[in-house]
């Protein structure tokens, strides 16, 4: 006998993401799903963001396959942080976030960063209840990345081009990265930054403050 199902395969994830969203709304919390390949500088950008005076009360959820190095780095800056170990999974999903929300003082925060597992593919597929997705690409990864991994560029609201201080030493074409990323996503907001020199970070935190407080 034939049974009609007609269900989105990720419906369960989307249902939990909506529940997370409800908790974030109750706490008037602005939530950013921060994504990149491994080593692009997500945690360094969070550390710099916490160091700069944004006036925002910021919390962090760290997602990694294993280890608690990232949470320890964030904790040194005095921000509430929870580490999730996915135990091999290539992305965070809504249920992993749901399970740790009770460990964060949501009512006392303005902005929550969810630092996803380092991976340019899968994190873009799974909603976790965020307001926006932001991605980091270090210029050392090469100018072919937007066209090789288009989904993440299409799904993101902002792109941080990190390690911009390395430009003189690399053959990378930064204008091609920007042109291809904007072709994929004409509304993408692009910041050229360096965690090493601090270049461009104040433009990023100004934008962050504007978006988080508008929430």
């Amino acid at each position, binding site marked *: *006998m034939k049974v009609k199902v007609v269900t*989105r*395969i990720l419906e369960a994830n989307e249902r939990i993401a909506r529940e997370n969203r409800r908790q974030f709304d109750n706490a008037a919390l602005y939530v950013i799903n921060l994504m990149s390949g491994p080593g692009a500088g997500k945690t360094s950008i969070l550390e710099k963001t916490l160091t700069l005076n944004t006036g925002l009360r910021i919390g962090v959820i760290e997602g990694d396959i294993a280890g608690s190095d990232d949470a320890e780095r964030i904790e040194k800056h005095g921000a509430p942080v929870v580490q999730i170990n996915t135990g091999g999974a290539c992305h965070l999903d809504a249920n992993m976030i749901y399970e740790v929300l009770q460990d964060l003082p949501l009512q006392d925060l303005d902005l929550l960063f969810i630092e996803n597992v380092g991976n340019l*593919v899968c994190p873009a*597929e799974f909603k976790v209840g965020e307001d926006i997705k932001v991605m980091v690409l270090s210029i050392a990864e090469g100018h072919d990345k937007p*066209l090789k991994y288009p989904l993440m560029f299409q799904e993101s609201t902002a792109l941080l081009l990190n390690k911009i201080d390395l430009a003189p030493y690399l053959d990378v074409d930064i204008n091609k990265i920007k042109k291809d990323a904007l072709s*994929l996503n004409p509304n993408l907001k692009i910041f050229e930054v360096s965690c090493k020199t601090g270049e461009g970070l104040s433009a990023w935190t100004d934008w962050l403050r504007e978006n988080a407080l508008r929430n």
Partner: protein
Amino acid sequence: MHELSIAQNVLDIVSEQCARSGHTKIDSVNLRIGRASGIMPDALIFAFNAIKSDSIARDALLTIEEVPVTGLCNDCSGSFIVEEVYILNCPVCKGNSFQITSGREMDIIDMEVS
């Protein structure tokens, strides 16, 4: 890349729906997967077959209908179907303002139970 977690979601959903309909065995499951969904059909079938053995879907055949990428151009109002998984320009007028109207699907359509 995450075909295994997608396969687990499929197995959970069809097992629950089969049990709810009062049946005990799933014979086949039909999916519709967009070509721009990031899912490789062969890898998804492989993953599903690997995890189904201890379930009521142990004999189920998974079939996948692939959905091509289609779009609607904001500049020339043309609609299009493309072979590529991702496009940067409208194939008709080359403008870069367009909406993708299909190709990202990940749906379970129906199943045979007994």
